[in-house]
């Protein structure tokens, strides 16, 4: 088999496994059946089993990653649809997003230093708290790699799915905004799906803080890169 056929088969395998996995997950919503985990694990096993190189796998599947561009533009719609919440609570949403970026970068730097992680990994960790399209753009400024950042973003999201709701119930929060906002800013799209389960307002707020902190991370990336040195 020649390489272009193999890479096309990898693309088809990715699509097939993902949508099959999604159908299974809809019926049995378990954490380990999340498409982000199971599909990835199966594909990793497939690439390893056929002892193919990652560039070969990425040759055609990069078109899927390319779709993150139009997805960024599409985030305009949730902002427009929730413009009432934005108009009334823009200060709370903005402050929450700014706080999330500052804390995420600060704590990541401290933790990385305490654990003795090396420079390249630390730089890829810095933008991991925001949604993938934003994280990839920020990480380019911060000196991280797209692949590692993409992986860290997914792990962060999984923390949100596993722990997000529990943390919120342990906190004495009275407003719906304060329940949705942290899920969006700490665990991006994964957190948003949890927030949607809590209620439509929580879901809307989570999608807003997810977008706000993503955009802020990209805007702040040159400054953070300068500060980190």
């Amino acid at each position: 088999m020649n390489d272009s056929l193999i890479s096309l088969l990898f693309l088809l395998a990715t699509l097939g496994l993902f949508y099959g996995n999604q159908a299974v997950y809809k019926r049995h919503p378990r954490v380990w059946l999340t498409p982000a985990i199971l599909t990835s694990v199966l594909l990793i096993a497939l690439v390893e089993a056929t002892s193919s190189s990652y560039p070969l796998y990425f040759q055609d599947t990069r078109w899927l990653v390319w779709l993150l561009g139009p997805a960024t533009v599409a985030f305009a719609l949730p902002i427009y649809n929730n413009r009432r919440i934005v108009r009334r609570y823009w200060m709370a949403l903005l402050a929450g997003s700014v706080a999330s970026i500052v804390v995420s970068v600060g704590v990541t730097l401290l933790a990385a230093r305490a654990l003795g992680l090396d420079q390249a990994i630390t730089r890829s960790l810095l933008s991991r708290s925001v949604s993938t399209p934003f994280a990839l753009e920020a990480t380019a400024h911060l000196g991280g790699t797209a692949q590692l950042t993409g992986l860290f973003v997914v792990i962060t999201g999984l923390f949100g799915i596993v722990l997000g709701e529990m943390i919120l119930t342990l906190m004495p929060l009275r407003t719906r905004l304060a329940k949705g906002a942290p899920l969006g800013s700490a665990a991006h799209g994964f957190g948003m799906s949890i927030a949607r389960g809590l209620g439509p307002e929580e879901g809307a707020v989570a999608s807003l803080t997810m977008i706000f902190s993503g955009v802020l991370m990209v805007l702040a990336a040159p400054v953070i890169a300068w500060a980190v040195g």
Partner: protein
Amino acid sequence: MSSYPQVNPPRPAASWAKALGQVLLLGGLWWIAQRLATLLALPLSGGIVGLGLLVALLLSGLVKPAWVEAGAELVLGNMLLYFIPLVVSVVQYTDLLEHEGLKLLVAIGVGFLSVMLVTACVVELICQQIRKRRYGKLTDVRRDRPALGSQVS
């Protein structure tokens, strides 16, 4: 134009075609935004510029939400799929994960927890301030309003 009540739901093929067309529209907007960003030497990517552009177009009414709604839903609903190829890249980093995997989990977990806690507190505090101010205004209005019956006498 008369609006007939829609008896039959739109055929799936037609709605798919519509959504795909709208995805192309979003892609086109992204492309234009990218050209614009390089042309004006903005420090932003086409994604962010396109996002701002589309919000502005929607708010001004130049673009109707219905023109892009189905496409946006399709693109955003499948977003998980787009970064799976990036996750598969761990095959390149098996050594790293063997040695640093646990440390990475700790770093990410601690980061996640602190972001959750701080964001929740900040948003809760500001929301309560906003509500207090609005509630305060309402009581002010009520206080200044002449009491019922006072005008009659």
